[in-house]
Structures are given as structure tokens and as C-alpha cells.
């Protein structure tokens, strides 16, 4: 056949193939609404207001005595830590014999607009730790905080050091001034007072805007092309839809919590200087004396390593370790890389420091 436009037949073929895939997609893929993101079985061990403490069912004999409580971030929901059987942070830890609890913040509504750091740290987190220690009979717990959950865990560790056996901070937001990401740049210029006083809670739409300016061409264009290209790869598609669903589930952040987080951590940079006050008490990072593991990712475009690493130098812990991984913010917790590198190291670290 004569091709007068001199178009590579491969291009035509690819174009037609993608078109075919687009039409076939609804037959092959479940709609995000039809997917339940909960994967590894758990019990709701404790709940208070909208907050739930999830206790995951063990998959093997318990090998690490001290229970681990994961303090998830304030942005999106906890499902990313258990997004796919082969990439599940929670399941990997269970398989290593860790007793895993996780704090799910739920979806705050307008009635929660006055909830602040004090309510989250001295209220919810402390009550969860209370519950775990009572239930397990252990005096202390190990705590892991991810992203903004890392900020909350840091404040908790500084205010309640005796309650923690170990502290692990995964990409925590600590030194806002040093953050070099787009998120940090916008956070430094936002009028948090006006936003909270006018709107109340930090609305999800604002977070969607922040997501849209992070790698807009790769995330907004290429990944969808790749999705349709790979529509017949069941595993790829399932993982894609699950992550997309997770990304689109962004709860509001309680107004007062958002105000203090933006002002004290990003704008006035009080946390790293130990000048932040929570519940009337000074958050002195020198109070953190338990073993500390800080995990950062060099390609993190949400919390830059420069923002997380200063915690390693600010605490008084003698036993502390800083792990730098060649991955990204989500890659550190939900990828094949995290399964092969990050989690085995984390499990080993916990094991060595757990009560015998």
C-alpha cells in the first residue's frame, strides 16, 4: 500500500493500538469506585472520634516483642502502606514477625476545625499508645512516622520520650526552611491564618493543586498514556488504579493543625529550633533519646532530604542511624525497591532494639 504522507507504519499501528485499548479499557479494568483499598486484614483495636487504630492480623509467629505503631501522614489515607501484595509495607513487616498497629486519621469534617497538634499528639497518639501498652502488656512501643506523620511522631517523642522504645522517621517534615520542594516553596508563601479563619479546614482542592504542580507532564500526561499502553497487563493496571484511587482520596486537614504546621514548621521553622509549643509545652528535640532511625529518599519531590535530615543531628539519642535511599517519596514505602532494601533493613533495625 502506498503511504503518501510517509508516516512510519509503526506509528499508525501504535496509534490504532492505543485507540483499541481505550475502547477495551472498561471491559478490562475495574472502576476505582469498585475497588476496596483495604488489603491486609485488620481489626479496629481502638477508635476515638474519626481516628481508628488498626491492628493487623499476624502472618507469622511474632519475632519482635515490642509492638510497632505507624503514625500515618495527614495527606491522603494510610492505604499506600498496604497498596499491593508485592509492595505492601505492612505485610512485609508482618512477615518479619512485627506486631503492627497503624493510626488512621479518618476524614476530618468542619466540626474538627479546632483540632490542633495538641489534640493529635497528646490526645489521639497518646491514647493509641496507652491502648497498645495496656493490650500487649509492654511498657513501651516502637513508633514510625511517615511524612507529616513523621512530624507528629517527632513531637510525640519529644513530649513523651519514656513511652517509646524506638523512633523511626520516614521522610519526616522537620526543617521547613531547608525544604527545596515545590510544596515547601508554596507553604512558605501561603497565608495560613487567613485560610483557616476564612475556610476552616484546609480543603482537599488545595492539595490537588499542589499535586498538579509536581511533575505535571509526567504525572498528568505520560502516566495515562502508559496506562492505556499496558491495559492488558493485569498486575500493572490493578496497581495503577489502586494508586490513582489512593491519590484522589485526600481528606481535609483540620484548620488549627494546618495553621500550626505551616507556621511553626515551614514559615517560622520553630520545630527544628526546639521553639515550638504544643499543649503549652516546649517541644525540645533534645528530649528524644531513644534509638532513632531516619529514612530519607534522594529523589523525594515532596519532602526534600535537606528538610528531613536535620532531625538526625538535633536529637540526643546515642543510637541513631541515617539511611539515604536512591528512590522517591512513595518509592521508599511502596515499591519493589522498598521491599528489597528499605524494609529488610528496617525490620533488622527494629529486631536488634526490641525488648527481648
Amino acid at each position, binding site marked *: 500500500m502506498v503511504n503518501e504522507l510517509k508516516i512510519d507504519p509503526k506509528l499508525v499501528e501504535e496509534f490504532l493500538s492505543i485507540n483499541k485499548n481505550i475502547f477495551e479499557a472498561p471491559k478490562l479494568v475495574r472502576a476505582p469506585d469498585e475497588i476496596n483499598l483495604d488489603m491486609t486484614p485488620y481489626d479496629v483495636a481502638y477508635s476515638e472520634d474519626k481516628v481508628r487504630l488498626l491492628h493487623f492480623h499476624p502472618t507469622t509467629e511474632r519475632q519482635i516483642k515490642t509492638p510497632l505503631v505507624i503514625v500515618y501522614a495527614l495527606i491522603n489515607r494510610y492505604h499506600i502502606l498496604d497498596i499491593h501484595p508485592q509492595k505492601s509495607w505492612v505485610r512485609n513487616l508482618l512477615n518479619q514477625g512485627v506486631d503492627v498497629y497503624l493510626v488512621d486519621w479518618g476524614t476530618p469534617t468542619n466540626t474538627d476545625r*479546632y483540632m490542633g497538634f495538641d489534640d493529635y499528639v497528646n490526645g489521639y497518639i497518646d491514647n493509641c499508645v496507652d491502648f497498645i501498652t495496656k493490650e500487649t502488656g509492654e511498657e513501651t512501643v516502637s513508633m514510625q512516622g511517615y511524612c507529616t506523620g513523621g512530624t507528629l511522631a517527632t513531637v510525640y517523642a519529644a513530649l513523651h520520650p519514656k513511652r517509646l522504645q524506638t523512633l523511626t522517621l520516614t521522610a519526616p517534615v522537620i526543617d521547613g526552611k531547608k525544604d527545596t520542594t515545590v510544596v515547601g516553596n508554596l507553604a512558605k508563601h501561603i497565608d495560613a491564618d487567613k485560610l483557616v479563619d476564612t475556610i476552616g479546614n484546609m480543603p482537599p482542592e488545595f492539595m490537588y493543586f499542589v499535586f498538579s504542580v509536581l511533575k505535571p507532564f*509526567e504525572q498528568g500526561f*505520560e502516566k495515562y498514556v502508559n496506562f492505556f499502553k499496558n491495559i492488558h497487563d493485569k498486575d500493572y493496571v490493578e496497581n495503577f488504579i489502586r494508586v490513582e484511587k489512593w491519590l484522589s482520596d485526600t481528606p481535609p486537614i483540620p484548620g488549627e493543625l494546618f495553621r500550626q504546621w505551616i507556621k511553626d514548621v515551614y514559615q517560622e521553622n520553630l520545630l527544628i529550633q526546639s521553639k515550638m509549643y504544643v499543649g503549652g509545652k516546649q517541644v525540645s528535640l533534645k528530649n528524644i533519646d531513644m534509638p532513632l532511625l531516619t529514612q530519607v529518599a534522594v529523589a523525594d519531590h515532596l519532602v526534600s532530604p535537606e528538610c528531613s535530615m536535620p532531625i538526625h543531628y538535633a536529637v540526643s539519642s546515642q543510637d541513631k542511624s541515617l539511611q539515604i535511599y536512591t528512590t522517591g517519596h512513595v518509592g521508599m514505602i511502596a515499591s519493589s525497591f522498598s521491599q528489597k532494601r528499605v524494609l529488610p533493613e528496617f525490620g533488622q533495625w527494629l529486631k536488634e532494639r526490641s525488648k527481648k
Partner: protein
Amino acid sequence: MQTSGTKKAQEYYKHVSVFWTDLLSLMMSKPYALVAAGPMRKFGTNMKKLTTELIESNDDLVEFNTRLAEYYKQLTDTWTEAQKQFNKKVPEIPNDAEHIEASKRIWIDIFENNFTNLFDSPKFAENFGKMVSTELELAKHWNNMISVLLDNANLPTRDDITEVYKELHSLKKRITKMEKDANHRMVMKNGK
């Protein structure tokens, strides 16, 4: 010293002034009063608040439009610059599949870099912050106007609800503290 004539003149002018001020005020209130019969009386009184909010929001609308225009200008300028760089690097779009794929990669890289630089820049964040700020000012006027309407209808306003949220939060805190204290006392008692 004032003569009786001057005094009379002064009193007269004062009277004229007060007369017209009061009369104008009464005349101005007539249109309100007309619509303010029965349950609408409150609306008539509050009309002034709505007008004031509307007038004030105009200034913020102007500021918001300026910031919004700057926001789109920054996006357009960055797009133009990125396209220029791409054209320089890939002067002709090849028509075979492999080169198209490579060109797409270059296009994404160049655009991603240019836009990330923009979003990372203080000038973008500053304008964005001010744009959001004026948007919030507009939202405030809108909220105030809605509050006037709610107040007219004898429904709770935003301020009323905010007060309830605040009170709820404070109550929750007090109850939690009392529960904790009670539990602590119980443990101490049982422990002994």
C-alpha cells in the same frame, strides 16, 4: 462678641443642616421600609451591609484579577520558553516511531524542567500566595453576605456555627481530661 443677628443666622443654618440630614436619612430609608414589611424588615435594615460588602469586594476582585492574570502569564511565558527550547533541540519532528518516542521524552523533560523551575521560584510562590489571599478576601465578603441573608431568615450564621464548633472542641477536651483523670484514679485505687 456675637450679635443676636449672627446667632440667629447660625441657628438657622444648623437647623437647615439637621433638617436636611434627617430628612434625607428618612427619605433614603423609605425604599428599604417599603420592602421591609413584616418578616422582611430585617432585610431592609441589613441591605446596607450587603451593599458595603459588594462595594468592598470590588477592590479585592480587581486585585484578584491582577494576580490571576500574572499567574496565567507566568504559565504562558514558561510554556513559550519551553517550546522554544524544544524547537531548538528537535528542529524537525521525525516521522518514525523510535524518533517520535525520543522526541516525546525530550519534550516531557524540557517542559517538566521549565515548569518545575517556575513552581520552585519565589516569584511564582509569592504571586500564588497573594492570589490565594485575595481569593480568600473575596470568599470572606461572600461569607459575610451569606451571613446577612441567613441572619435575615433567622438561621444560624457562619459565626454562630463557628462558635458551636469551638465550644464542642473545648467540651471534648474537658471530657477527655476528666475521663483520663477518672481512669488514673481508678488505677491508683485498684493498685493500692
